């Protein structure tokens, strides 16, 4: 079922583990090279930067192929365009299969983009056809295509797409069951998210090493949907929008207290669970969801002017992180604030760029005379330079 040979995927897993051991100074370079030559990985996976470049070029090549095909076919009617789109989807998928077999691309940018474009071409069919766009049909079809791609190419992004489509599909189908379904939808969706999350936790402990990233990515999404299904803002505004309830900002919803409680309790619960189990994925998701809770509260209750809220939030964050940094300078409870492996130069360079981007807001000198040789104010500066 998988496009890659098991031995290739296994060797890749061994290489990844060895890289981890090298980065944490557990093994030396000699042992690392020995492991890499004994378990040679023939899959081609370049760095992130190269993946982005390759992905961009793939988009250029495919989009212009699409343009050329459309020009050659001179299709203008709806059925004609649908046929062109289907041919394009088939071409993308065929190219993907051939390239993976011949060149063994594995997360190389090219294969990722071809998968995404296959799905985009298929979904475009739903938009082109004159019928009302069927969201159930679209999410259903996309779900199956993405599921196939994620299984065959062990692709994490496709796994996430599968989950999203599955979630939307289930939600829309469930709503068809009438008023009781509408009222119980949040609970059902929460249960579904929780069950999938637990199932994945179990699966990722198993021997399916080649799908570990897929499991991680979908676990993250299931944590988010579990929160979102119980979030007051999402429930109120979504039902308002979908069932045309015309509720105003202050109107209550049934069981509102329950959803407020869930909105408040789920993020701290994630953080506490994550800290106790040393599960960074759950912990970081919890941290990010705190921000979502803050925005939910702010939407309904404007307590203070926005700058005061920012001031308070800023002080709390600085105090919290500063005391944690001081407190964990000596490791406690299995945690430390010290960077144990400070070899990551990229992180520092990225940080410097972020600083320049977020803080640099001074105006730029208009038509400076410095290099232009004009008679502007910059001329004075030239002398000193």
């Amino acid at each position, binding site marked *: 079922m998988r496009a890659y040979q098991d031995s290739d995927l296994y060797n890749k897993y061994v290489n990844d583990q060895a890289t981890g051991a090298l980065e944490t100074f557990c093994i030396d370079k000699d042992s690392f090279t020995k492991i890499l030559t004994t378990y040679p990985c023939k899959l081609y996976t370049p760095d992130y930067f190269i993946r982005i470049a390759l992905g961009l070029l793939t988009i250029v090549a495919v989009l212009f192929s699409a343009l050329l095909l459309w020009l050659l076919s001179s299709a203008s009617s709806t059925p004609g365009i649908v046929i062109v789109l289907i041919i394009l989807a088939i071409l993308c998928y065929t190219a993907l299969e051939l390239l993976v077999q011949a060149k063994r691309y594995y997360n190389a940018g090219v294969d990722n983009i071809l998968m995404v474009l296959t799905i985009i071409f298929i979904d475009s069919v739903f938009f082109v056809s004159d019928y009302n766009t069927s969201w159930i049909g679209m999410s259903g079809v996309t779900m199956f295509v993405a599921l196939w791609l994620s299984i065959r190419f062990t692709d994490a992004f496709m796994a996430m797409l599968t989950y999203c489509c599955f979630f939307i599909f289930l939600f829309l189908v469930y709503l068809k069951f009438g008023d009781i379904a509408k009222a119980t939808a949040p609970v059902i969706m929460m249960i579904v998210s929780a069950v999938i999350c637990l199932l994945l936790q179990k699966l990722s402990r198993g021997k399916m090493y080649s799908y570990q990233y897929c499991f991680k990515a979908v676990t993250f999404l299931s944590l988010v949907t579990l929160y979102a299904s119980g979030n007051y803002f999402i429930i109120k505004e979504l039902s308002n929008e979908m069932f045309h309830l015309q509720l105003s900002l202050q109107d209550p919803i049934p069981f509102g207290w329950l959803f407020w409680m869930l909105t408040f309790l789920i993020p701290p619960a994630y953080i506490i669970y994550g800290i106790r189990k040393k599960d960074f994925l759950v912990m970081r998701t919890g941290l990010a969801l705190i921000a979502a809770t803050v925005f939910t509260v702010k939407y309904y209750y404007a307590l203070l002017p926005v700058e005061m809220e920012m001031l308070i939030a800023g002080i709390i964050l600085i105090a919290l992180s500063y005391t944690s940094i001081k407190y964990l300078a000596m*490791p406690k409870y299995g945690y430390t604030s010290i960077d144990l492996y400070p070899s990551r130069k990229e992180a520092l360079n990225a940080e410097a760029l972020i600083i320049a981007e977020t803080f640099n807001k001074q105006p730029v000198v208009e038509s400076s005379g410095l290099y232009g040789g004009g008679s502007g104010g910059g001329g004075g500066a030239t002398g000193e330079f």
Partner: protein
Amino acid sequence: MDIPLFTQLLREGLIDEQEFNKIAAQKDKPVSVHWDLRTLLYLGIVLLTTAVGILIYKNIASIGHMAMLVILAVICIACFGYSIKNSKGYSNKKIESPNIWFDYVLLLGCLLLLTFTGYIQFQYNVFGNQWGLALFMPMVFLFIAAYYFDHLGVLSLAITNLAAWAGISVTPLRILNDNDFNNPHIIYAGLATGVLLLAASLMSKLKNIKAHFNFTYKNFGTHILFISLLALMFYFEPIFLVCFIVLAGVSYWYFKNAIKNSSFYFLVIAVLYFYVGLSYVVIKLLLLPGYDMGALYLGPIYFIFSGIGLIRLFIHYNKIFKKNAGLPG
């Protein structure tokens, strides 16, 4: 880490007993939350400084400009005082910062300095009509601070200030939006700034003065230079082929250098900028009279084949670089 896997590697003799013990001990080691806490701290500082900025802006009438300036100056001096007291002194080599707090206090001091000079210029016109001087003075100071305290963030601020003084924006999100590349002065300023930054990069490496600053200089310099070269080509339409030859020459020089230094990042950047220029020239030539419908088909064909060609080129060199680094594959 997968202990059963490493047990197997030990049995196969790929790692020794000592290494295995280190790996096994890994799970009892404390987990580092360094970057998580640092991100939170950074977020807090951004929120706080923004909030203070808004507060001041809203209440300036009741605080008064003079009082505001005094407060800014006092905090600024306090920040630099703290930094000087805690710094380990100047060295040509890289200095590790004494603690996380230090980096942010220094950054705050530098940001307040920029606000301060902007403020006195805007309110009291201290530098008169010489706006350039109002940017030049803090820039010099930022460069000194970046070198003395060894801070990459402050260096980036100094470089963006240098560019602002020359009249251009260089941060990633603003480089294309804020700059009016239809103004030849901006293009010349960009070219000169790019060359200047590249020279600084080269000097820091050759003279071994803060050699780890070299990437920051080179990165900013390269992007400014290439974007200005492309702008030059788009602007001077009658001689666009001459400009293209210059662009091709610079790209080729980068390409050769990147191969020599095994820097794939700069290889990709040089090739991609060259590709943008080449595509412009190809489209220009196809739009010449005489092609008519042919151009409509030749255009897509060019992009399809050039795209695939570049993908093959990148992968080819990527494999060579990997081999040179002593890695299989």
